[in-house]
């Protein structure tokens, strides 16, 4: 079969495909999960992803930007998949979600550091499930033999005490905002962000009544409308630094967003350095490079000294 190249768009998905006689490459964008942040379009090494800002309709809330992928430029490397904070893009080869860039260590993975100690969970607590802005947490209660108990209220206290709590988080789609951690009454969840940074809104520059950034922010509570000045303010504790707000902000410099570090698996790769430069800043990139090289230097010195020590010991 000759190479078939397909690009299909539906209300829910955008699909790109290379269908070869022996192999099938597929990229699927889940439009429901996409929040119109800038990460993929910044990171794409082939500059194939374009953000399309949506025209604001009078009297309606602002819509987040939509992404479009240029078929001719896409090489199905999957870097967008790896980096999407919301797991909205999925690249598969022959239906399997195995990314060669990760496997060959050409690109790091984001570290979604989420620890749940469900032994601390009270049997009737579902705070985290209710708090998750993206509805990614499922709390269930299991009997000793692993059966799910739906109706906890009907049980006796003794029966309740024998139940186990299970907290399931769909990690792949989690941007690690940490709301669940804050809302947990028992300190059972610990979440580290993978993007660190700084976000500032200069309220003096905000047009009156503009809430565009708030309208598109995927994390409830990261931005809020202040009663004092009627302007949008930031709660940095919950911000995931995705940048969806910056994309729609109508005024230059009213909203400043800077990513200062990214929590990722270790990797030595040119494309990662470039991505880092684009996602964060050249300064951050050099910092990371320096850290790497000094670590490398340290390792090599240790190795040498260790070898010398070995000689001494022999003597």
């Amino acid at each position, binding site marked *: 079969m*000759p190479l*078939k190249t397909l690009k299909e768009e539906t209300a829910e998905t955008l699909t790109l495909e290379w269908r*070869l006689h022996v192999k099938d490459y597929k990229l699927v964008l889940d439009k429901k999960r996409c929040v119109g942040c800038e990460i993929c379009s910044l990171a794409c090494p082939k500059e194939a992803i374009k953000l399309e800002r949506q025209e604001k309709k009078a009297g309606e809330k602002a819509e987040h930007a939509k992404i479009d992928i240029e078929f001719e430029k896409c*090489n199905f490397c999957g*870097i967008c998949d790896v980096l999407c904070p919301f797991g909205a893009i999925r690249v598969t080869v022959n239906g399997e979600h195995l990314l*060669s860039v990760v496997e060959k260590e050409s690109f790091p993975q984001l570290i979604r550091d989420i620890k749940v100690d469900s032994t601390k969970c009270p049997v009737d607590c579902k705070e985290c499930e209710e708090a998750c802005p993206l509805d990614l947490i499922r709390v269930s209660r299991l009997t000793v033999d692993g059966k799910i108990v739906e109706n906890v209220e009907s049980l006796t206290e003794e029966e309740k005490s024998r139940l186990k709590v299970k907290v399931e988080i769909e990690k792949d789609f989690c941007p690690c905002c940490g709301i669940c951690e804050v809302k947990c009454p028992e300190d059972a969840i610990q979440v580290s962000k993978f993007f660190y940074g700084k976000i500032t809104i200069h309220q003096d520059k905000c047009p009156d009544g503009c809430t565009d950034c708030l309208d598109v922010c995927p994390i409830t509570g990261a931005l809020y409308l202040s009663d004092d000045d009627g302007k949008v303010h930031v709660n940095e504790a919950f911000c995931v630094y995705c940048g969806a707000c910056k994309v729609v902000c109508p005024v230059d410099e009213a909203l400043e967003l800077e990513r200062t570090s990214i929590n990722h698996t270790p990797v030595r790769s040119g494309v990662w350095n470039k991505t880092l430069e684009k996602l964060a800043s050249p300064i951050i990139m050099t910092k990371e490079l320096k850290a790497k090289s000094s670590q490398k230097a340290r390792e090599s010195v240790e190795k040498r000294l260790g070898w010398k020590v070995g000689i001494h010991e022999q003597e």
Partner: protein
Amino acid sequence: MNKSEKRGEQNQESEELRIGVFICHCGLNIAGVLDIQELVEFAKTLPDVVYVKDNRYTCADPGQEEIRKGIKEHNLNRVVVAACSPRMHEPTFRRTVSEAGLNPYLFEMANIREFSSWCHPSTPKEATEKAKDLIKMAVAKARLLRPLQTMEVPVINKALIIGGGIAGISAALDLAEMGFKVYMLENSESIGGHMAQLDKTFPTLDCSICIEGPKMVDVGRHPNIEIISYADLLSVSGYVGNFKVKIRKNPRYVIEENCTGCGECRDVCPIEYPNEWDMNLGVRKAISVPFDQAVPLVYRINRDYCIECYKCVDACGARQAIDFEQQPEEIELEVGAIIVSTGYDIYLPYDNPLYGYGKFANVITSLEFERLILAAGPTGGKVIRASDGKKPRSVAFIQCVGSRDTGKFPYCSNFCCMYTLKHVVQLKEKYKEDVETYVFYMDMRSNFKGYEEFYQRARELGANFIRGRVSRIFEDPKTKNLIIRAEDTQLGKPIEIEAEMVVLATAAIPKKGSDELARILNITRGSNGFFMESHPKLKPIDAPTDGIFFAGACQGPKDIPYSVSQGSGAASRAATVLSKPTWKIEPIIAVVDPEKCRNVKTKCGICAQKCPYGAIKIVEKQPAQVIAAMCHGCGTCVAECPADAITQMHFTDAQILAQIRAALETNPEDKILAFLCNWCSYAGADLAGTSRLEYPPTIRPIRVMCSGRVDRDFVLEAFRLGAAGVMVGACHLPYDCHYISGNWKMKARMEALAPMLHKLGLSPERFRIEYISAAEGVKFAQVVTEMTEQLKALGKEKIKAENKKLKPVLENMLKRKKII
């Protein structure tokens, strides 16, 4: 030689002219139509003709001996042979006369075979009259011929081979073994061509890469061969023996000298993309070679897909072969001969909805099948369906997809019958009774050594052969099987067959970029788009441009043995140039008369502007200078010169005017005078003759090297003498001209002249410009027929009346230019 030079000097103005005319019967080719005796008697009446002789075959030894004898016995100093086309035998007879001590340029030919007996067989009387005119024109020109000395230019004994397929490889190895330096230019990453893509070869079923691989390695290792791969040809200038070639080497981002071909970079590369070399059935890495046996074995980074992770740089390590900063590099070569062996492409029938190619997953082309059945291919040699990955239990092969189709490619693609038989045999031998095969064919062509026996083998293995064209293929939406509807012409009824896979034997088509290459090399393409040889039978390897030769399928579809033989043939043809220290150049160049050149007094330089080769140098206050070795002898400058200060040797104004006058001496109102360029329209007219296409005997052709030579004065003189019509025949625009752009110069000149003539009362149908290629014999015949009919419709009386009005005006114009 001394004698001839002496004789040449003697026959300046004062010498008494003694012309001999030799009329050829060409067996019955000429004598069967024309009245030879009448021609002989007529020739005797022509001025300065002292001896006339007819021969059965003038080109044969006894005929040539007659000429030599005639020159000696009758002291002839001009020779006219009335026979076939000068494109055929002019060189033969030039040699004959020079053997008898006459300067070869004191010879002229009258083309009474292609231009008369072959194209007017049903009107022998008129054909004879036309032949008389042709002889009269030749004699008129002969009276004004001057002896010329051929020039010699040094030859660079290196060759360029464009295209490293099996034909180019054969040519390269042969030339290199003869001791010549060979540059092999390959546009893709590796040499090998289509043959390296194939699994087995017919009729012996030996593995293709196993027999070609060692040859490729030989090319790579030969001290006389330098491969320049992944590079493009930018320009070629110069002439036979002295070509200057510019090439751009595209960046591989891998340093050729440092790359060891180990492939460690490929193993770490994370990026894959469809491998074109695998017909996009499989993938290759962003840093890779197209196939393992590639020569040169140098990796390449495809920056369209590379994400620049630099894993390859790490893997390459101390070898430091990877260089992301590499830039394209331009190099210049000097060679004496060029062999074009660019091969062919395979037609992909996306545009034909009949076969469902590109739409139905289990319809593939034969070349795709080849990659499937190849053990080193993307499926590891398993023939599997794209729809479900299963082995098909029935395969239908469809022949002549695109080929032998008047709506698409009218020609036969030569090797499809044989490779389909091979596929059938391979399938049958591999899967035995598990697979049923059907072949839908128009005719099975198996006419070379061992081929018919191979056909027999396929039949014995139980393949089903169905003679008939396929009318439509449908896909079963559930099973993805294919339903083929066809007519079985042997049963005489429609049939329907279900197959699990369909393989299309698609046409071989001219390589992409052939038009560009034709332009760069100044060579022509036939109507099918393949390169046009100088003569289909006697010069099947030579391009019309000296020093350029063809090998392999670029000139027309060829199988492997044929391509290999032609590669060797091209090598030996190229060696005829390369082995000589110097090459003789025809002295039909332009010469400037310093007395007449206007540039001495005023600023002119028109000739230099119009010269397609930049062969004319203009220095202020000095007459224009023609650089002889660069002049190709098109004569464009001669026609353009406002002072008539330039003369083209052997095609002088006086000679051509004499031909015009001779042609129109009697009954001009019945005749069309035609100026035909040597390479295209004259050759097209020859082809009309060789194809025995009959057209009215009204035309009187004059050969010029290029249509750019046709001076407006020639047209004016023809109408002054009362010609019914004038036609200028040229090579096709934009690029077919053998002198780069002579046809464009002619077009501009004649398009300015036509309105003036119309204003003076000339009916538009009497003056015509036609672009006729060497392959368009049919068009030539049609044009003459059409023009004759138009002139007939116009009426002799009308023509005469127009002429009466035109004549005094034209006379004035020509008198002012001292032409009459």
